[in-house]
């Protein structure tokens, strides 16, 4: 695997590239001052929705299991009567 040339192997082109990269590094990047608020608001909202969905899923599962158990019992009873 080729690696970055060690400092003593550096060519003028490496130095020039570093100068240009330094300018990019020092150039301003867009600020996103309201990003934190937006992310936290979305996280709160999504967590709420996820909580509701999990509750609904739990209720549906419990109801389904209940119905399954009742049907199972009835089926068992019918089976036992025969």
């Amino acid at each position, binding site marked *: 695997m080729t690696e970055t040339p060690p400092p003593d192997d550096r060519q003028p082109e490496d130095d020039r590239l570093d100068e240009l990269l330094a300018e990019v590094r020092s150039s301003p990047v867009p600020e996103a001052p309201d*990003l934190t608020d937006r992310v936290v608001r979305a996280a709160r909202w999504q967590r709420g929705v996820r909580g509701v969905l999990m509750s609904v899923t739990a209720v549906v599962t419990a109801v389904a299991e209940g119905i399954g158990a009742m049907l199972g019992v009835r089926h068992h009873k019918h089976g036992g009567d025969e």
Partner: protein
Amino acid sequence: MTALAVLPPGADDTQLVRRAREGDLSAFEALVSRYRDQVVRVATRIVGRDEAEDVAQDALLRAFHSLPSFRGEAPFRSWLLRIVHNMSIDARNRRTPIPIDVDDGVSADVPDSPRPASMLEQHERSDRMALKIRELKPEHRAVLVLRDLEGMAYDDIARITETPIGSVKGRLHRARKELIEALRNNTYDWELPR
């Protein structure tokens, strides 16, 4: 946010992550505030300004929902930047060929008021350079951004890009060569014999 006041002053990432995993949104907010600028910066340099904020927001939200799977084996910052890196690369790959346009939004914030010529020139050169960086292959671009622009250590970059350190160094070397080659064709900025 007032809830921040209940956090221990100077809480470290481990404490904040633990509290965020327990559902403390103010702890998550503190983490977002701590890393927001770097997340936006990395996203900007990989996908460009137009998409950077969306990528940053999506990455931070994904991090929030993935916190239960964060095992703490790597520093939180590396783990978060891995998500940013992956989502930036995905966003870039989803896009059709890169529109190389000097007015690609990067110059949009040049104020109307007169600026010293040298500053304006440097600003424009830096914009052209940013565009050249975004033309690099995604895996090369990410390594160059993390190493040469963010100044991160090789082992951090290896964790973020999920690549062996040797490959990271190789990619960086190729990225720089690729960039030098691209710049050689730009007589305005290269200023060295071709």
